[in-house]
């Protein structure tokens, strides 16, 4: 059971099983649109600098988006969680906007903020921020009443309640929110990077596609996967540092 658990957590093994499935499809279809994994890996390694450059461009957009989303989203989420009035006022909007696929706003952002990086980063913020707001708000709602009473019994000030109770209580929820939204932002970048840029892993894939260079295309797809794995790994590491108690 322990072994099975470790197996399920190992991202290396996840990558391996992906390769095996890929190889199977490659062998079954026998078409040049699905190149063999081996060929793709060799190709990727030979062009590692180019792939790294494109990945870095995408990564920068995502990290900027995450950073800004947290700076804006966490205070809003906290305020929603502690202020009933604001909760009543803002929640309907949140429930309306939350389920809409945020990629649908891409044209709007491009019209408003141009085709460049601004609209791409704003799209990512738009994806992540609602998830953060909702995670933080729900995290606060889940704080047991007794924990507030304990703080009261020690005469904690408002600031101390944030410092010792509310902030630590929401930390794990922030990570959950990020985990949910990072995948979606990667997927959305894939679309957003088709416009007004020559850098980004999304651009890399689409341009390979239009060139009908399928090995190149698959090297991009593989890289997106690896990018996701790296982001989740970073997230895990940070969570283990700042919120280790439920691990």
């Amino acid at each position, binding site marked *: 059971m322990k072994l099975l658990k470790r197996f399920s957590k190992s991202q290396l093994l996840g990558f391996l099983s992906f390769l095996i499935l890929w190889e199977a499809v490659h062998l079954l279809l026998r078409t040049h649109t699905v190149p063999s994994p081996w060929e793709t890996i060799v190709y990727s390694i030979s062009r590692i600098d180019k792939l790294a450059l494109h990945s870095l461009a995408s990564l920068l957009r995502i990290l900027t988006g995450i950073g800004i989303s947290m700076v804006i989203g966490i205070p809003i989420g906290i305020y929603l969680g502690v202020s009933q009035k604001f909760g009543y006022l803002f929640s309907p909007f949140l429930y309306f906007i939350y389920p809409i696929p945020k990629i649908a706003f891409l044209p709007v952002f491009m019209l408003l903020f141009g085709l460049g990086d601004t609209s791409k980063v704003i799209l990512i913020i738009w994806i992540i921020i609602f998830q953060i707001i909702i995670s933080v708000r729900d995290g606060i709602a889940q704080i*047991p009443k*007794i*924990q507030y*009473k*304990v703080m*009261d*019994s*020690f*005469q*904690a000030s408002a600031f*101390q309640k944030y410092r*010792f*109770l509310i902030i*630590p*209580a929401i*930390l794990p929820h922030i990570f959950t929110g990020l985990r949910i939204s990072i995948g979606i932002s990667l997927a959305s970048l894939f679309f957003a990077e088709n416009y007004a840029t020559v850098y980004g892993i999304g651009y890399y894939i689409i341009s390979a596609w239009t060139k009908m260079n399928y090995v190149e295309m698959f090297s991009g797809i593989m890289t997106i996967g690896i990018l996701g794995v790296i982001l989740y790994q970073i997230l895990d590491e940070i969570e283990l540092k700042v*919120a280790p*108690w*439920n691990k």
Partner: protein
Amino acid sequence: MSNAEDSFIRLDDVTFSYREKIILNKVSLKLKKGDSYAVIGKSGVGKSTLLHLIAGFLKPNAGSIYIDQQEIKSVRKNTAFLFQELGLFPWQKVVQAVGMPLHLNKAGKASEIQNRVLSLLKELDLEHLKNKYPRELSGGEQQRVALARILITNPDLILMDEPTSSLDAMTKEQIQQLILKYQQKLKATMLFITHDIEEAVYLGKHILLLKPGGTFQVIENSFYSVPRAREQLGYYEQCIEIRKLLMDGETI
């Protein structure tokens, strides 16, 4: 404020109701400094309400509560409250949990606080658990940590709402001994609620039987703090007596 000499806690005609439901009706009560009081009474009679009033979590609709000559308007600095649910924070290791009240009170430098915490943990045999999170502790260990968290500030008033109700018999006795030891060491006044008559007799110098509306029957307990009380027949006779009083007028 006459003859307040030895009364540490004083309730003057305290009335409290939840909306139209009156729980305490013009209750007056005096509790002596340094004494230990067990509050018993049937479920829903208002024991927790009484304790929360004295803690300053609730305010009387009429009448006043004085502790140490001061009228209680909000939570008081030297009052410690042990909750039945403990309310340990999942993100605090034992040292952090026990140190928190001192940090909240700004009771000194971090290193001084650390030393005070460690010496109390040693006394409570919790030192080896200092870096554990609550989920890594047994029920009895969590109880001891929660106890340490209220004892660290050397309170002069200890309020406890069913402090041992979730523990097995062995652990319960161990915790009761600790409570008794520290109540006497700190010379603290103690008021605790229990559903366990035997606990009331073990820990309470006085037993307050609360009746609907807030009238009290006070029973003096001669087995409080008697060495090896539990090995004496009289101790159990006392329990039987109190059980009778508690059940009085009730049909089972």
